[in-house]
């Protein structure tokens, strides 16, 4: 077990540093902060709302993340397969799941860095008024969990191709479905013909529903289980797919 954990941390270290070895990290951070800022201040009218909270910021997170996390996750496996380094990884004396987990955690930590860079907004809110900091903390927790779920899905999909662009687009489509599953727009379209249980199942997949509850400050077991199991399930499928697709 110690050996497994140590190989997770070795993979994590390499992958985390790899983000910063290319301009990708800087571009990502700039784009994320610029978009988050623009949405919060201009589209949602942060100041005009006259309310000391971060709802104007969190509302946009699912929509930003469904584009940005596929960008973080796309290289994780597609690049290994394209360059052939997957042959090195898979002939090392470590369990494949440790590599899957190390890579995922590196991408997740990178997302954490991006989120940490938005904390000046939190400070600003506190300077302007007296917000409920518990709700904001819950909002950050929810955002981070959602990022983890999207990233796990994107990493999983990137095992299926050697092409990062295809990996990006496919992951964006899948995360889009996850986000919109609970919207009346989608449910209404299914309800007409699908059995009740299917409609309910689709609604239960809704990231948006869980995310909205947690950003209101409601940290509930179903939400934690929802995001947690989405991550675990995606990583398990990821491990299985790596083994299946590595040699093709």
């Amino acid at each position, binding site marked *: 077990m110690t*050996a497994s954990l*140590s*190989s997770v941390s*070795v*993979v994590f*270290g*390499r992958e985390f*540093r*790899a983000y910063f*070895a*290319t301009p990708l990290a800087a571009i990502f951070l700039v784009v994320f902060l610029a978009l988050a800022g623009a949405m919060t201040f201009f589209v949602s009218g942060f100041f005009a709302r006259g309310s000391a909270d971060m709802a104007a910021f969190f509302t946009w997170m699912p929509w930003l993340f469904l584009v940005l996390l596929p960008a973080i996750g796309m290289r994780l496996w597609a690049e290994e397969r394209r*360059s*052939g*380094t997957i*042959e*090195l*990884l*898979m*002939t*090392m*004396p*470590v*369990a494949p799941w440790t590599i899957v987990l190390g890579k995922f955690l590196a991408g997740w930590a990178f997302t954490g860095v991006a989120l940490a860079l938005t904390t000046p907004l939190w400070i600003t809110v506190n300077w302007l008024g007296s917000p409920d900091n518990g709700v904001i903390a819950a909002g950050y927790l929810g955002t981070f969990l959602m990022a983890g779920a999207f990233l796990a899905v994107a990493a999983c999909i990137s095992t299926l191709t050697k092409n990062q662009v295809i990996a990006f687009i496919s992951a964006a489509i899948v995360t889009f479905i996850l986000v919109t599953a609970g919207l009346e727009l989608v449910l209404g379209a299914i309800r007409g013909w699908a059995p009740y249980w299917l409609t309910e199942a689709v609604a239960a997949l809704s990231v948006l529903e869980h995310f909205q509850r947690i950003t209101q400050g409601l940290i509930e077991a179903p939400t934690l289980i929802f995001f947690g199991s989405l991550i675990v399930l995606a990583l398990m499928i990821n491990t299985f797919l790596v083994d299946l697709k*590595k*040699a093709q």
Partner: protein
Amino acid sequence: MTTLVEARGLKKRFGDTTAVDDVSLSVSRGEVVGFLGPNGAGKSTTMKMITGFLEPDSGTAQIGGHDVWRDPAAAKAKLGYLPEGAPAYGEMPVADFLSFVGKMRGLRKAQLNNRLAEMAERVRLTEVWSRPIEALSKGYRRRVGIAQALIHDPDVLILDEPTDGLDPNQKHEMRNLIREIAPNKSIIVSTHILEEVESVCSRAVIIASGKVVADATPRDLVGSKDDGRAIQIRISSPEEASVIEKIKPLVGGAELEVMERMNGSTRLLLRYNDKPEDTHAIKTRLKSADLPVEEVGIYRPRLEDVFRDVTTRIH
């Protein structure tokens, strides 16, 4: 002698084609096996199965006594592998990459640093130690690939075309390196350069269409035909065809085959399948017929001839 690599009955199909068909191979400590074959013969596929990267449809592979599928961690710990094309993380400096591989292989701290220092010196990477791998020349990149395979001082080394794309000097260096590390390890080297096999390998395994068609020392492979039933003649004449016609009745019913034409002279091979002929008798007969024969002698095939012979027979 300890057997470090033991592959039995490996089979692999991709769709309708059988890439590897019942390949068995065992390699002892101290042996360097040259794995030869035309492109697409199944060399890489076989190696990938022995390393545990690719699961065979049937058959088993053991490294250092551990089955690569039932006990992968133990088997892979004893294995160093250079995949075809020496893949590496291009953006990483040489030192970071080797240190990453070392850590994945369980090396830590002082032990890791010792091994890194030894690799830098032995594989001669000091000059490029802190440069990103993508900025290196092909020769250096290949050396980085060898270094990552050797970092944990494995018992078994599997190298897929380690000299492919290198210049003659780099090839020479690579062969010296392989020879240097050979005594304590089992090494499998795939290649399609035959002189490489003669210079570094203690055994040659030739594979064609997924099957092992020869497995012997390079000398035995060449010698296996040196039985006096094959005689070679070198003639030098602009009218090759008419000379050959004149030779035919004088050589006692041998099968006649043109092996090579070079600088105006032609090498002919006479095969006597049942009764060996006397070289001198033929020489005398040809001389007295006043034919432009330069040389008559026992046919000593080069590895190249054997290779062509055993790999084309199957098609």
